[in-house]
């Protein structure tokens, strides 16, 4: 079964450092997403990406965050200057189409990267 893969599985970084989280979405998917989940809290939407540009972003996704699809397979999330409150599980997801309810459009999530900022 196709899957979304994320690397690394766990990253520890010092406050103020830049981190790049990497994801390989499912190959025929066109829409890509990043979500995060702070320990014990709900899954929060960060950003969606289609056709090489951001299509929607949440208020969490401020100027410290950026996304990129540098080649045909990778999708990355960069946090420029990490803060303690950025510590969370970051999930990448991809889907074939938009969530318009036609058929069974579903998002496939990766296993996540646990980011710990110290």
């Amino acid at each position, binding site marked *: 079964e196709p899957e979304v893969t994320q690397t690394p599985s766990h990253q520890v970084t010092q406050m103020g450092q830049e981190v790049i989280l990497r994801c390989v979405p499912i190959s025929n998917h066109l829409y890509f997403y990043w979500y995060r989940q702070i320990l014990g809290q709900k899954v929060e939407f960060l950003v969606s990406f289609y056709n090489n540009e951001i299509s929607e972003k949440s208020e969490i996704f401020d100027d410290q965050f950026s996304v990129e699809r540098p080649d045909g397979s990778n999708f990355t999330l960069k946090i420029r200057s990490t803060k303690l409150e950025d510590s969370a599980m970051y999930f990448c997801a991809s889907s074939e189409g938009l969530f318009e309810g036609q058929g069974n459009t*579903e998002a496939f999530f990766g296993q996540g990267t646990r980011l710990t900022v110290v």
Partner: protein
Amino acid sequence: LAKTTQPISMDSYEGQEVNITCSHNNIATNDYITWYQQFPSQGPRFIIQGYKTKVTNEVASLFIPADRKSSTLSLPRVSLSDTAVYYCLFTGGGNKLTFGTGTQLKVEL
């Protein structure tokens, strides 16, 4: 924005059927109802989606009444491995999923 309400937690025993109900009074015409499952330290996983009446797949059934103001996820004969958080979501246009707090299901022997 449409909002969902689910029980915070439920307990069950192995072999029993579990029904988790989600309320969504202000669901929009183009919204589909979708359920995801999340195990600890893993990403959410799609379970089932429906618009109205009943949908069944190999893992669950989804019951949606005619007014669509609620939906019930039914898990037949649960096992310990079904212990997880279950989220009821809308997918109705747009390009994001909005997760609520979900229902923590705990299955015991």
